[in-house]
């Protein structure tokens, strides 16, 4: 079974139609835990992007060799390998970012979105398609995290990317973990509303 989408459609699919955070509602723990600022969201997004692309490609290359009964352990092993590699590379070349992100990077092993993409897509499709799907999913996750981070940072701390834009802190509880759920819910509703308006306008 091969996908009938073009590479561009695969990327756009990951960002819009199947956005990991707002559409698939996967990997909610990191989404609500870490998306307190735009920068945090961006850095975790980059790490997830790399892990997703590398893992998708690896599984797509070896898909015929993986025994169907042990595919989940194999996926976990693949993800863990790439997470470890990225962890070591970051620790060596970006020590300052690593000091902040180190603990979250190891968590990527347990991210639902990556395993799910390997199971649903990479183990059935070609390497090229898996590569672009990985890029799309990673970017979708990154943009989702950054959007969440933007709203939470602005409402919670009154800043954007660390720069003070409001001059006061409107709702401090928005940077606490539980407020992440409010934020995801409200933003999901907002995006669904926009989509419904867009479809109605198209139909009319």
């Amino acid at each position, binding site marked *: 079974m091969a996908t009938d989408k073009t590479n561009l459609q695969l990327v756009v699919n990951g960002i819009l139609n199947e956005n990991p955070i707002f559409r698939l509602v996967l990997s909610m723990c990191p989404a609500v835990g870490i998306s307190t600022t735009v920068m945090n969201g961006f850095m975790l997004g980059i790490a997830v992007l790399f892990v997703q692309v590398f893992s998708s490609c690896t599984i797509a290359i070896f898909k015929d060799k993986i*025994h169907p009964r042990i595919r989940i352990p194999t996926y976990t092993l693949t993800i863990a*390998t790439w997470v470890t590699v990225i962890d070591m590379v970051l620790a*060596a070349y970006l020590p300052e970012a690593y000091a902040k992100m180190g603990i979250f990077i190891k968590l990527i092993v347990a991210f639902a979105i990556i395993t799910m993409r390997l199971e649903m897509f990479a183990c059935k499709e070609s390497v090229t398609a898996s590569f672009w799907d990985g890029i799309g999913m990673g970017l979708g996750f990154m943009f989702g995290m950054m959007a969440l981070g933007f709203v939470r940072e602005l409402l919670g701390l009154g800043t954007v990317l660390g720069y003070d834009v409001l001059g006061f802190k409107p709702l401090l509880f928005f940077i606490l973990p539980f407020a992440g759920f409010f934020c995801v819910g409200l933003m999901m509703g907002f995006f669904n509303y926009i989509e419904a308006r867009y479809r109605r306008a198209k139909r009319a």
Partner: protein
Amino acid sequence: MKDIATIIFRLTISCLLAGLVMGTAFVLTNKAKLHNAEEREHKVMLGLLGYSAATSAPESLALHAVHRYIVTSGENSTIGYLVPLKGEGFSFVEIGLDGAFVGQQPVKLAAEQAGEAGTRDAAITAAVGAGKSLRYADQTIIVTENGRRSAYLLPGVFPGFKTFVKVILALDPTFSILGLEIMEHEEDPGLGGEIVQGYFKNQFKGKTFEALKKLGVVKTPLPEEYRRVLTLGKNNEAIGPEEVAKVQAQYQDKDIYALTGATISSRAVTNGVKGIANKFAYRLAILDKVLAAQHIAVAF
């Protein structure tokens, strides 16, 4: 049955491949990582001495590393110190467990090679001769300013609540604490992990050697005025230097205020710091006595 064999075979191959990828990444990145750690350590050490990017260290400041080894030959153990000599070169001074001088050998080592563990160990092994085995113990950095000792920097490790806590402790020549910096730890975030925060680690600052000997941990809340002084510079609060001095003097002989929900971590750090300072003071007294008696001209 055939399935099991295939599964075992393929999983083994996957694991081997994964190991190969991770091993390659480790080999490629380890050097840069070590370099980063070294650089960070140096920065932290200068920070503990009160120098930062804004106020750079003066030219007269020099850091002399003294490496301690445990030397065993057969049944006998001695402690060996690699000390930098005045001018150039190194000497390996062996001291018996009873504090008596055993012997000293010149070590052929360039100044910049002393930091590399492999080269250093090889050079010392060559100097002490065959038949003796060396085990690296720790290093101490003796800071001199214009040739006079101004501080000691002691990298140390002790057990925390979960795993080991790596710290650097700075002492002044009378063994009063100049500062404490936590380098690595794996305590729980939000509980024991708070040991890295200024309001905990800065409590050690200014404790004298006498006070340190009977330093304990109390489970009462940290007074607000003390907290404000301990976290000075973080919240941009304006506190006059007189008030800082007054509050610091008031709490100087007090015990360490434990972290909320992390009494064990707090106790572990306190006991660890006490241990490092006590052992160092004991060892330095013996080393100084031997160096003076043997007229060994060291750089510090």
